[in-house]
């Protein structure tokens, strides 16, 4: 019996007619009305209620995304003001930067698309560097690289916010359950990514090493104390003796935020040695699956390198030409750890990964052989 009925029955007069089954008439009518309305509302408007609740959920996340995006913009502007010592207010230029886009090349005829993509990415990179120089004229190379990364993180947040807002408004406009549903379903993953970028912003602004730099850290540890030389593009190489083998250790040039062109560097070293390389060991951070432990080290084969695929393609082309075997050692972490300041577990995993690399070299090569060890990832906060 619902509350209305109870309240009504408590007010009854002695003259009220009794229902044959026990309760009074008024109470029974109220009960019936309540159930009929309840069933009718949920039958006819059930889907609409569900849609509105989904819209509310998306709205809440959108509000959160807006906060994160605004905070990101604020951090970027503050960092530029602090480092760049620019006379003019960088806000307008930052706002323009946040709206930048890159059009990927046409792939109807896929032959040669990698080179086209590489060219577009090079143009984008040059453009970004020029913009940062204009925004922060007093910044040195390291600071400029860090600023570029900060702006890129702010740009990613802005993009995520705009996409979610687009679907939210479209769903509201069309009242289509399916538009709202698809965005509501992927929302937890999108929010996770946005939160990861938000924590990356501060790391980039301060120049702190991030989880993605695990590969670069391992390479830096291996080459520490040895001479380094620059190789194209934005990479350094150091020749180190490991277990009686000559190892060419490659990483992006730090300590500014930079991923370099590891593919180009590996190709250069292979060509310099006329393909006489016994094996290549690629080291990188890799996304872990739920249930796996952060900082777990795993081993496999293939070119362990992220990004748009240009570097992976170049490495695969080079190793195919000379039939060089390629091994991979990865440090597992989730998306949040990859772009936020490096966790202790990932830092500690570097030594375990080095041991694993040495083991691979011992097992797969002979004394006197030449090997390449390439540490992929963003080298922010890691020298050289």
């Amino acid at each position, binding site marked *: 019996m619902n509350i209305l009925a109870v309240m009504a029955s408590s007010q009854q007069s002695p003259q009220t007619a009794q229902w044959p089954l026990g309760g009074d008439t008024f109470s029974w009518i109220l009960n019936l009305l309540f159930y009929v309305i309840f069933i009718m509302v949920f039958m006819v408007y059930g889907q609409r209620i569900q849609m509105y609740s989904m819209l509310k959920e998306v709205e809440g996340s959108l509000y*959160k995304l807006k*906060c*994160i995006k*605004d905070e990101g913009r604020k951090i970027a502007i503050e960092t530029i003001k602090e480092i760049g010592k620019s006379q003019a207010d960088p806000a307008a230029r930052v706002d323009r930067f946040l709206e930048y886009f890159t059009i990927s090349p046409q792939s109807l005829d896929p032959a040669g698309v990698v080179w086209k993509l590489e060219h577009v990415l090079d143009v984008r990179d040059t453009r970004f560097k020029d913009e940062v120089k204009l925004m922060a004229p007093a910044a040195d190379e390291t600071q400029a690289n860090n600023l570029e990364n900060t702006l890129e993180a702010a740009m990613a947040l*802005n993009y995520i916010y705009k996409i979610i807002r687009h679907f939210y408004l479209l769903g509201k406009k069309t009242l289509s359950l399916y538009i709202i549903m698809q965005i509501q379903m992927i929302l937890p993953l999108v929010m996770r990514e946005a939160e990861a970028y938000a924590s990356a912003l501060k790391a980039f602004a301060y120049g*702190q090493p991030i989880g993605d730099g695990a590969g670069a850290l391992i390479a830096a540890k291996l080459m520490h104390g040895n001479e380094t030389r620059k190789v194209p593009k934005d990479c350094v190489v150091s020749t180190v003796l490991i277990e009686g083998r000559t190892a060419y250790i490659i990483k992006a040039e730090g300590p500014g935020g930079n991923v370099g062109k590891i593919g180009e560097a590996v190709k250069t070293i292979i060509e310099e040695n006329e393909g006489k390389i016994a094996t290549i060991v690629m080291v990188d951070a890799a996304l872990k699956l739920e249930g796996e432990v952060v900082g777990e080290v795993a081993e496999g084969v293939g070119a362990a390198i992220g990004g748009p695929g240009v570097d992976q393609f170049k490495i695969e082309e080079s190793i195919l030409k000379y039939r060089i075997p390629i091994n991979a050692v990865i440090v597992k972490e989730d998306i949040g750890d990859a772009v936020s300041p490096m966790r*202790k577990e990932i830092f500690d995993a570097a030594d375990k990964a080095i041991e694993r690399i040495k083991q691979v070299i011992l097992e797969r090569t002979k004394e006197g052989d030449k090997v390449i060890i390439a540490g992929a990832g963003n080298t922010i906060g890691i020298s*050289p």
Partner: protein
Amino acid sequence: MSKASSPTTTKISSFMLMIIFIVLALSLTAIILAINAWYTPGQELTAGYLLLIGVLGVAMSTYILFQTRKRMLRLKIEAPSITTTIECRKCGFKSVREFQRGDYIFKEVEPCQKCNVNMLITAVYREVKERKRERFPF
């Protein structure tokens, strides 16, 4: 993106707050009515229902109010505490301090207090206190 848009981001919807406070006020009224009904002969059942509604309403609105506040606190991007480890390559002296802007791994910093050789930043990381993990059988 205008500058004026940023202050609105820290505001919680006033409509939402209004609803929460109306529910809270109604729930409190229900509790008062319940007390009143309790002392009226023959109204004990109504008193019970009113009390139930009142308590549930108060509990739900305060919970939502706390949740909203929690959400507001969470919206700020927190900077985690980062540790920098500095080591002397000669005597092995080790010191740990908070990260400072400009620190990077393998950067040479101030001389060692013991042997006057430049020390080296050997680690920059953040420590995460893991929440108690749920136990899964797999």
